[in-house]
């Protein structure tokens, strides 16, 4: 069978009176509005950020200044606070994504094995996802409160230590992680559960007939079959964690000190609190570059899935 790109009507003689617009023309007209928006509002800021990253840009002194070549890049890359913020982002991402994947997949297996209560649990799990991190994150400060917070009250009544969740610089970052776990573990769990429920039955029945152990079934059948779904979840969660901003902004504002200052928050503070648009734009360019490289690796498998489907239909 030959696969050619034919429109639904390309083998039909166009109605008289109507100019026979080619498929190509029609398809381009269809994507034009979306492309226009994307091109203007994705490329324009990029160009602007690039431009500012090569100039003096201390907005507290007024307008943008002269071109200074790579000076801003030299300053930013030599800035210990920049790398320390990068490290904070890295720590946050690895721990948050790691725990969310483990807990989420665990919860998915748990729910999959349950015979009742599944529907209700699923409904309740969805709720954190629908809330804005800026809103519920703010309320978590009340839960974390050392005096009136529920969390320390529970810990206290079990005789456990009552940490200063957001005030202690050694644990503040992990408190933000805990909030992110609360909001996003359900995402991993729901998708892993959908993946589990969509698994084909036959291989598992065959394995049971062969008397394979549970562990063997898990490692040789379940996980390999779930891999594409889990990879997708991993990619989506990693993107979100790397550009985390809302939770930090409402929970800790980067503090105490700079203990929870992630890349995004440092960028924000440099640009809009210190008005060093030049340094902030340089970081933004660097950030965009890193994400673009990551996109190529992460999106290629997803895109392949799409083109395969396009060829089938």
């Amino acid at each position, binding site marked *: 069978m030959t696969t050619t790109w034919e*429109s*639904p*009507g390309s083998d039909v003689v166009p109605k008289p009176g109507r100019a026979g617009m080619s498929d190509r023309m*029609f398809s381009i007209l*269809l*994507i034009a*509005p979306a*492309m226009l*928006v*994307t091109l203007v*509002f*994705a490329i*324009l*800021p*990029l160009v602007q*950020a690039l431009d500012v990253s090569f100039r003096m840009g201390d907005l507290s002194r007024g307008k943008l200044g002269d071109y200074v070549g790579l000076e801003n890049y030299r300053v930013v890359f030599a800035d210990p606070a920049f790398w320390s913020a990068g490290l904070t982002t890295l720590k946050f991402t690895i721990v948050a994504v790691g725990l969310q994947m483990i807990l989420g997949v665990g919860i998915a297996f748990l729910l999959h*094995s349950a015979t009742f209560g599944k529907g209700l649990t699923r*409904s309740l799990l*969805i709720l*954190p996802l*629908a809330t*804005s*991190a*800026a*809103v519920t994150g*703010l309320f*978590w400060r*009340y839960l974390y409160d050392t*005096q*009136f*917070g*529920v969390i320390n009250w529970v810990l206290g*009544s079990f005789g456990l230590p009552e940490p200063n969740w957001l005030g202690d610089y050694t644990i503040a970052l992990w408190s933000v992680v805990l909030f992110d776990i*609360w909001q996003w573990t359900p995402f991993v769990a*729901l*998708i892993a559960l*959908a993946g*589990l429920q*969509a*698994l084909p039955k036959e291989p598992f029945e065959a394995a*049971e007939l062969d008397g394979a152990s549970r562990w063997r*079934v898990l490692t040789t059948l*379940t996980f390999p079959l779930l891999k594409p779904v889990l990879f*997708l979840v991993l990619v*989506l969660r990693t*993107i979100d964690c790397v550009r985390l*901003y809302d939770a930090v902004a*409402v929970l800790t504002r980067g503090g105490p000190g700079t203990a929870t200052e992630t890349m995004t928050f440092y960028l*924000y503070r440099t*640009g*809009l609190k210190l008005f060093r648009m030049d340094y902030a734009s340089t970081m*933004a360019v660097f*950030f965009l570059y890193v*994400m673009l490289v990551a*996109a*190529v690796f992460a*999106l290629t498998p*997803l895109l392949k899935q*799409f083109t395969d489907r396009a060829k089938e*239909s």
Partner: protein
Amino acid sequence: MLRRKSSWPVEVLRYGTILLVILFFFFPIFWMVLTSFKPESAIMVSPPQFFFTPTLDNYAHALVDKNFLFYVKNTLIISVISTLIVVAFGSLAAYSFARFNVGDGHILFFILSTKMMPAIAVILPYFLIFRDLGKTAIGKSLHLGLDQHGALIVSYVMFNLPFAIWLLVSFFQDIPRELEHSARLDGLSRLQVLRKVTFPLAAPGIAVTAVFTLIFCWNEFLFAYILTRKAASTVTVGVESFFTLQGILWGPVAAAATIAVAPMLVFVLVMQRYMVRGLTFGAVRG
């Protein structure tokens, strides 16, 4: 999955753990709603109060003193208009990608890669662009300046289009092209086919996309925080205004937060069948 008969201790452990899971994920929202009905005397106390005489004072404070409905109105206007534009532009583009594979995957890749763009990295250019746009004649008539609705709408359209297109493509791919073929044979023009055959068939998918876009716009914080001051601020920024020098008024915060999240919670419960598909860009047909 294998289902072997489990002994009762295993069952107790299983449902006990499920109960813990529910408690952890549901409690913060439950506590927020509960706190919104508490009198002040039951909020700033230790130990936390589970039983109290409910009051609407916090809602009165949020709605009357802080005029929180103003933020709700802004949010509604901005989210609904953004969603309509996203769905309109997105549907046309997604149909083109699904049927004609325009750009052979490369354009789609470009559009999707903008989804990975960290908002914070473009927020400074956006700030400068909208500041300047607001001073031009076109910008003035379209309210594109800082602290105006148009600036947020444009930002939200830009940041939600990639997701919407990707999701819609998966829905359009599910519609058999034979139906369009026969409609063409019946003498309908391309646009008529789109309007009378394809879009009605894709309506459920378009609705799901619209709901997702609406939720994302409604919950957005960064753009709203930086591009608005007061006149065009949305609920996520409005809640922040409950910070005072005396500290945070938890009762009114809880009331405002409940108002801010309630519409989306209801939406999600209604749409939960489609949530999984939406959350994974249509890759997992949950």
